[in-house]
């Protein structure tokens, strides 16, 4: 696994004065950390939740909880890992909440086209596949889904996923395994996922 994901490392590079400032609730220190870590947190949230108009809200909720919890931050893990745990908890809470199902939105159109530079119809196809995938992910248990995405998409080790989700290693392995099997079974039955299935047969 990439060292970027190392749990408990002290590789943030933040001076202790900044971390202490965050603990004291100083806005300048918090803003410095948030600006640096937000792109990373957005990535985790976006991958767990899928294309959603609510990414901004989720980031805000994560940072809001971080502001409240910083006084209890003990530097046992890096600031990034600690914030990622909060983001994962926020995403899990969001997924468990039935009233907060994903909504396909304009954000999806904006990002999907502008970032990849693909032709509109190709980008549309990729977006469609992504939407189909997340529709099926929506049917998985939120914890299974989150573990699967962190392991398979974020390419974290089982140990890291377990630490981020505050769960045991064997539980995490089991969650990833069940998510993978259930997702495979669902996609195999969905004619809209034909493109994905064909790609799976490839090398």
């Amino acid at each position: 696994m990439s060292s970027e994901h190392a749990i408990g490392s002290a590789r943030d590079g933040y001076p202790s004065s900044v971390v202490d400032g965050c603990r004291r609730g100083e806005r300048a220190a918090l803003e410095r950390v948030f600006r640096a870590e937000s792109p990373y947190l957005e990535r985790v949230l976006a991958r767990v939740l899928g294309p959603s108009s609510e990414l901004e809200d989720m980031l805000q909720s994560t940072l809001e909880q971080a502001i409240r919890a910083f006084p209890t931050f003990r530097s046992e893990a890096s600031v990034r890992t600690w914030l990622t745990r909060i983001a994962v908890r926020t995403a899990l809470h969001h997924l468990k909440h039935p009233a907060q199902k994903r909504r396909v939105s304009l954000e999806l159109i904006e990002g999907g086209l502008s970032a990849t530079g693909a032709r509109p119809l190709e980008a549309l196809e990729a977006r469609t596949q992504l939407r189909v995938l997340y529709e099926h992910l929506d049917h998985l248990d939120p914890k299974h889904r989150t573990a699967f995405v962190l392991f398979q998409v974020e390419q974290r080790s089982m140990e890291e996923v377990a630490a981020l989700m505050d769960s045991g290693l064997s539980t995490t392995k089991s969650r990833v395994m069940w998510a993978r099997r259930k997702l495979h079974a669902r996609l195999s039955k969905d004619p809209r996922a034909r493109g994905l299935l064909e790609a799976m047969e490839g090398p």
Partner: protein
Amino acid sequence: MTRPCHETEAWLGQSRAALSEAQRLSLEQHLGECADCRGLHGMSRVLGELVRAAPTELSAAARERAIAGAFVSANQVREPRRSWLGRSLAGVAVAAAALVFYAWPSATWVEGAGTHAFAHASVTLRDARVRFDESTATLTLARGALEVEVDPRPHAPFVVQTAHFRALVLGTSFHVDAERVVVRHGHVRVLAGDRQLADLHAGERYERKPVVAAIAAAPIEAAPVEAAPVEAAPVEQAAPVERARAKRARARSVAEAPRPVAEAPRPVEASTDYLSQARAALARDALDETRRLLGEAEAAARTPHDRAEAGTLRAELALRERHQSAAIAAYLTVAKRYPELASGENALFAAAQLSTPEAARPLLERYLARYPQGRFSAQVRARLR
């Protein structure tokens, strides 16, 4: 003999670089013999690549909004819960403050109908009386109802204060009157004192329960509250979104009870309901149902906001049906008719994004000319370069 499935499953879908030489060999040997694991491995690999290729970052403006919003919300709900006595005293204090506030003569009251600009918000008054405090970006609603569209660009919250609650807005479009908040786009937090009553997203609403104590505290001009049906309920009782939804039927009956003043026009609410149902139908790919609901919404729509929202949904529906040119045309219609609304700005950018490079250029230039500091201006400049 290869390793059994359960021993190699943890390596499925992993990039080769992430595995040791021994693990890689074991996995390849196992995949050569086990078709099931080959299928799972292929799926994990393809899905990983698909999701990793998708963009995940917010725009710089959206990120700044989220950071600013986090500080606002953390400060708004930080206070610990108070005892019932504390709450009662706080309620009395709020009531007294409201009484003084509303009774205080001021030259800045605006009343009647029409659209007004208050800081970074465009507010349409519906038989309303409002006062705006620029220093706190707070619009106080004394009477009537409002349609509010808040521009997210300044990264500053906008607050609408009623006699009973305040709505904290972070870039959105919504309806508010003395009893309820209905959100069309974005995110609104409904607060009373330090307590959060509801956290609303697009299509969701908060309806206040009528209360006994609040009536005594009603502001001088808050006639609708005095006329509201009375129920024995605690002051400022929290109505989370979930509970409000579960009790929607009852809330509707309360909302529909005759009130002489400040009742929001029913068509506005009906179109909002249709629009949120249409969005939900579109999200679950029920395209025929979306089309039907959009027709209802368009027939009921009385505000530019609702018409623009319906137009945007038409475009999204066309996109879902893979009618790209129809989607572009629908976005351009919204952009042309509602340039002053956020929906119009979004639509112009979306039309440009869907168009071919030759067709996109004039649209992008039009976007920059119309919204030089717009939500997508950085992306537009980058594309033009």
